[in-house]
């Protein structure tokens, strides 16, 4: 009698099993379609992203960032929609047999979408910092040769790279001239950290490998080497800033210990 009822199509528990297997199928189709759409979007971004970054002449790359923000919003919007649908339409129809597969379906799907969001922009070089930096320095080195003291007319020696307005003493009459390096040179201050990081990729990769092999705590010396490499580069890019750059190095290490190496 029990077995007959279990497989009887008139049995309400049988009806709910059919509903829930239907739910599982529908959920699979829904998440598959959403994932395919995300994949299509990722493909399009991978094809266009670098072209947009390269074409953007704004000094702050605002057009590329505007594009990127909208794409990120598309991905987060899809994840939102999937999450809302999962909680409000799918899970209420689940039973103890389908709860786990549905949950796994959702979790896998949202992990895939997050990965696709990241992958969309992987390898896209927002700006070629090294090229920009070299162009700015070339321009600066050309420009600084032509300055004359505004008091006595002698050649004004601008001996180093200044990224802020600075007082330069005339070697002949000792007058303090005010030197303004121009807007391009000023950008270097904001490029220093990302450029220093880009130049320290070898040390970074070494740290990553160490971390994989022996864990984060044991990889601390490798991270310190990476931080030191960044510091060395920053001192080259921003001469005279050594104290400030050292503070940044100290913060990098403090953060590493505080947020990554808890014990």
């Amino acid at each position, binding site marked *: 009698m029990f077995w007959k009822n279990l497989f009887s199509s008139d049995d309400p528990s049988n009806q709910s099993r059919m509903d829930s297997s239907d739910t599982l199928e*529908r959920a699979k189709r829904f998440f598959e379609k959403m994932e395919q*759409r995300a994949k299509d979007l990722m493909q399009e971004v991978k094809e266009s992203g670098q072209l947009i970054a390269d074409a953007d002449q704004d000094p702050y790359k605002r057009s590329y960032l*505007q594009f990127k923000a909208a794409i990120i919003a598309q991905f987060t919007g899809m994840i939102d929609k999937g999450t809302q649908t999962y909680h409000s339409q799918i899970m209420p129809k689940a039973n103890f047999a389908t709860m786990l597969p549905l949950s796994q379906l959702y979790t896998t799907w949202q992990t895939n979408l997050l990965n696709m969001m990241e992958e969309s922009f992987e390898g896209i070089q927002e700006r070629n910092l090294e090229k920009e930096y070299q162009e700015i320095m070339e321009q600066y080195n050309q420009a600084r040769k032509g300055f004359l003291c505004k008091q006595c007319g002698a050649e004004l020696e601008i001996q180093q790279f200044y990224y802020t307005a600075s007082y330069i003493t005339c070697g002949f009459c000792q007058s303090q001239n005010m030197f303004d390096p121009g807007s391009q040179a000023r950008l270097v201050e904001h490029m220093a950290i990302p450029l220093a990081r880009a130049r320290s990729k070898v040390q970074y990769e070494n740290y990553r490998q160490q971390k994989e092999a022996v864990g984060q705590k044991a990889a601390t010396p490798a991270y310190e080497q990476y931080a030191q490499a960044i510091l060395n580069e920053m001192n080259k890019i921003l001469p005279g*800033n050594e104290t400030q750059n050292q503070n940044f190095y100290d*913060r990098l290490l403090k953060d590493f210990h505080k947020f990554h190496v808890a014990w």
Partner: protein
Amino acid sequence: MFKKLLKNLTENITDVAKDMMSEKMNMPSGDHTSQMEGYGQADMQKIFDEGAASKGVKTPNTATEDPNDPLLQPVHGISIYDYAAGAAKIGEGCTDDEICATLGVERPLWDEAKTIWNNRMRDDQTFNVINVYSKYFGKAKEHEKLSGLKAAKAPETTVPEGKAAETLTRLETDKHYFFEIQGAMEAAYATGMDGAQWLVDELGLTVSQVNNAGVKYMNDFSIMAEMMDFQEQKKKEYSERFSKENGTSGVADDIEF
């Protein structure tokens, strides 16, 4: 939520988006108010302050201004208030030279002060300096020298000056309107627009002016918690409007369960 607010300042867009997503996904519904009510009658600002303190971090409420703090000493006579108010004015369209002339300092002094103040905020693990800066950023209107400074060349807009000034007052006094505009800005970026330019075109104001008007809201965690759902709702409404106007609706909008 604490984790998001304590984020390293140099984190990039995708990492922040990923973290926000993982927080959202752990919440069963979009209704944050019910989450807050789950904390009982607790003072959200107090909870946030205590949570932050446990990590050795200051908040706008708990930031201190110790006169002997080396990180808060003036740089070439330029105090953190001078710097913050100057930054607010630059956000309105004033130039560095206009700031210098008004403060009575020369450009090399101001440039070094900007670098040093920026670096102090960057390197301060306790977030105290940035919280003190934020407080003074919001008080630019009261700065002894800079309050009266008007940009010789403000951003181009068709919005009349009087109307823009009215909107600014409304942002300062109408909490709902302030968070509506925050939601609108987010919606603009999400639908492919330049949110900052939209503010200039639509309201005749810069991002800096808008944010300055609402510093007292942004520094109060209880208000932020209270207004989160409202801002989200407004963001949705503006997103629908902007995406229709621009043809940039969700790429998966047609897919149904």
